[in-house]
């Protein structure tokens, strides 16, 4: 009686087994395919040294550079183009003999994951990879997947390219290890993310007040703003600050409060003349700043929602008229100021000022790093000369006085010609404005100080030689947003000496990997609780002790070892 069910069970089992064999087989064939895909390229004899091609400025026959693409919803295309096939890839092929191929295109937030997956599955990596995740860069270096390009860079890079990258050795810290360069750093504009004090200028004028320069003056103006409630809101607050994601943030920043006492929480520096790098959050200055923030919280200058607000959420307090102060970078002139604040209230006027100074007479703000990730280069890449030729061409193009790039990257993409003059107005460009930079392997290398130097030249009425920059100079006279950008740039330049930098920009140390989260958690908890008055200010001292015991001491020595190893003074 029982053997029948048993038999069927056996059949079922056999079926399952055969299926698993089937899946195993298909897996194998998959990997075989992958092997076949990559092997021809890998086994292709390295093309005869292409020295000639490099000096000719064009590769013939064309060489291929593979990369990976990261897109987001903000990517717009025109003329039916794609990331794989567009005006720039055509240009690269025709002009330089470089065929840009995308191994994969994925969403922004999946980019690192995709490379990690390729890394763990042993898949061949793209030749060049744009990366902003320092941990991933470190993993790739450690996994020995990247190419040492130190000598190639010296050999092929143009004078312009070298001038950009060799002006500060710290640009290379992220992309290099033990003196070997594994990638080309991507550079931000200098001071691009340094916070400034943005004020509702129309409120200042209506109340006949001056922009504050110290914390005390700031308190007076905040009181006046709250009293007057010119935004006509239910609950006016002093300033728009969000501390959910920390204190030194990209907008709605609070680091300047600490900066007024001479430290930046979360940053490593030789604070106030210390002999070695120290963690900013455990310095006694941070305690004073927290006491101040607690006072400001109690006085209603800091919103009770600050602890739950991230950068954008907190900025709503400024854009909806609850508050007249917000601290953030120069580019806020466009968004959220023009795009949100003035949409809400067309009469609103805003202006940036240097951050106010603290009770000690000092002022400080979190300095923004210039290097921001890098274009990492795979060990299997065969045409490093082609890549550097490409970058040389872009670097020259970005500051070209004449030639194909004198007005912009591609006509009818980022600019258009009207009556022989370039226009950068999106409405003028037929078919809509599309910035070709997003098609580049990495943004065109440009001196981080280029924009600031240009603004200084404009301010001093010095001659400007590049046509693109001449247009910028003319725009400042006619366009409101360009004028504010210009003024803000100069304001940032004026306060540049107050930037307090994070000198630790290297790989996560062993302790940081193991204990980093625990250390950060107690810091976030203690700081918020002190500001909200849920814990007495003296809890700061027990936090410092706990932090040190939990691994902070070891972390400090590891960070200092790293700093010495890269030759920091």
């Amino acid at each position, binding site marked *: 009686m029982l053997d029948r069910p048993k038999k069927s069970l056996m059949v079922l089992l056999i079926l399952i087994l055969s299926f698993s064999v089937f*899946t195993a087989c298909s897996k194998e064939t998959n990997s075989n395919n992958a092997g076949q895909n990559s092997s021809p390229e890998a086994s292709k004899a390295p093309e005869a040294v292409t020295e000639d091609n490099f000096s000719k400025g064009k590769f013939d026959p064309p060489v291929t550079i593979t990369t990976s693409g990261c897109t987001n919803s903000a990517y717009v295309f025109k003329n039916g183009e794609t990331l794989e096939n567009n005006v720039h890839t055509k240009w690269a092929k025709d002009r330089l003999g470089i065929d840009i191929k995308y191994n994969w295109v994925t969403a922004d937030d999946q980019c690192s994951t995709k490379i990690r997956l390729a890394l763990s599955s042993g898949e061949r990596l793209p030749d060049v990879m744009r990366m902003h995740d320092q941990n991933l860069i470190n993993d790739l270096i450690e996994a020995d997947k990247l190419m040492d390009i130190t000598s190639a860079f010296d050999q092929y890079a143009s004078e312009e390219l070298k001038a950009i990258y060799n002006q500060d050795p710290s640009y290379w810290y992220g992309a290099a290890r033990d003196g070997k360069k594994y990638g080309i750093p991507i550079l931000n504009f200098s001071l691009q993310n340094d916070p400034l004090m943005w004020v509702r200028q129309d409120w200042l004028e209506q109340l006949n007040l001056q922009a504050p320069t110290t914390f005390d003056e700031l308190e007076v103006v905040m009181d006046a703003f709250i009293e007057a409630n010119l935004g006509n809101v*239910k609950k006016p607050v002093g300033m728009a600050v969000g501390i959910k994601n920390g204190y030194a943030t990209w907008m709605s920043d609070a680091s300047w409060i600490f900066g007024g006492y001479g430290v930046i929480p979360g940053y490593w520096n030789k604070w106030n003349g210390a002999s070695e790098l120290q963690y900013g959050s455990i310095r006694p200055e941070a305690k004073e700043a927290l006491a101040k923030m607690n006072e400001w919280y109690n006085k209603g200058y800091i919103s*009770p*929602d600050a602890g*739950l607000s991230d950068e954008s959420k907190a900025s709503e307090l400024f854009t909806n008229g609850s508050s007249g102060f917000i601290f953030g970078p120069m580019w806020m002139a466009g968004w959220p100021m023009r795009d949100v604040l003035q949409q809400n209230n067309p009469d609103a006027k805003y202006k940036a000022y240097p951050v106010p100074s603290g009770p000690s007479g000092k002022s400080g703000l979190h300095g923004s790093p210039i290097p921001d990730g890098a274009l990492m280069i795979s060990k299997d890449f065969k045409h490093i000369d082609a890549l550097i030729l490409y970058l040389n061409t872009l670097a020259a193009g970005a500051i070209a006085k004449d030639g194909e790039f004198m007005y912009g990257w591609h006509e009818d993409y980022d600019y258009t010609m009207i009556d022989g003059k370039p226009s950068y107005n999106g409405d003028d460009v037929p078919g809509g404005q599309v910035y070709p930079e997003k098609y580049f392997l990495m943004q065109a290398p440009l001196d981080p100080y280029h924009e600031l130097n240009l603004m200084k030249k404009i301010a001093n009425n010095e001659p400007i030689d590049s046509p693109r920059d001449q247009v910028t100079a003319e725009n400042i006279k006619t366009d409101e947003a360009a004028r504010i950008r210009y003024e803000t740039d100069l304001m940032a330049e004026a306060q540049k000496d107050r930037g307090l930098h994070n000198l630790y920009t290297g790989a996560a140390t062993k302790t940081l*990997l193991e204990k980093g*989260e625990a250390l950060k958690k107690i810091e*976030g908890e203690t700081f*918020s609780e002190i500001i909200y008055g849920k814990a007495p200010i003296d809890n700061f001292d027990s936090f410092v002790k706990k932090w040190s015991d939990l691994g902070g001491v070891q972390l400090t020595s590891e960070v200092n070892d790293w700093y010495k190893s890269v030759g920091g003074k």
Partner: protein
Amino acid sequence: MENQPLIEQQKVIRQPKTHFKWGKNIALYVMLIPGIVLTLIFSYLPMGGLVIAFQDYKPWLGMLKSNWVQWDHFAMMFLRDDSVQIIWNTLIISSAKLTAGLIIPIVFSLLLNEVRQLFFKKTVQTLVYLPHFLSWVILGGILTDLLSSSGLINSWVEKLNHGKPILFLADGDWFRIIVVISDIWKEFGFATIVFLAALAGVNPSLYEAAEVDGAGRWKQTLNITLPAIAPIIVVVGTLSLGNILNAGFDQIFNLYNPLVYSKGDIIDTFVYRTGIISGGFSFATAVGMFKSVIGFILIALAYWSSGKFANYRIF
């Protein structure tokens, strides 16, 4: 062709005990195959990855070449100051959710079952399960706005609380309450579906008999409806016990902040911060494995006790 049923019947008569009718049921077995294959591929195969919980896993070395570190990651999890706190938070939040998430749908479906107006009943049913389809990213934003110091809720609270707002999401105790209530609000409608289905299956003649015996609605509910749906309640309860260590990552992640770490940080958010943000894959796997083992033990226990005390068995 017409004879076929007859033959089948004869077979049944000859072998009354066996239910395995290979020839007749082959279609059913074939339909089972995709499910089995998928379970194997997506549920059993990945279990092999658990070995990285015992390794210092490096993606480029893979599972075979990474260094073995035995129980280091488990030790690290329990040596942290806050590990007990995190486990407690998880248990408190999730057991509150489980209990309320079981009782409220039962009560609600009993009430809904008494409604005789069909249109009203269907409308309510649809309305209450709609929130289930909203994501926590969106709801998190809405809740943060509603509960902020100048939000809608606080404009009422201030009238009762001498003009002072309650900082719901900045206070640990309130945070837990908000998390539980908002989760119930979002999910109870969906959970109701199962119970309503069970209620529909109760034999009406039982009610008729009870009415003849003079039982009112209340007595009928107590003595007929509840016993009839008891097995379903046991199944739902047993299955949800396996989730006792899942306090709801999506929800907490979108609502929490450093101020409520002490009362609101749960295992999953903790794993996210250490594993994903800081790149500690092995550690995150170790914590995940710990969770699964506890979940497994709890399900086994619950299943065993439901067999013993409620006489309910699936297998």
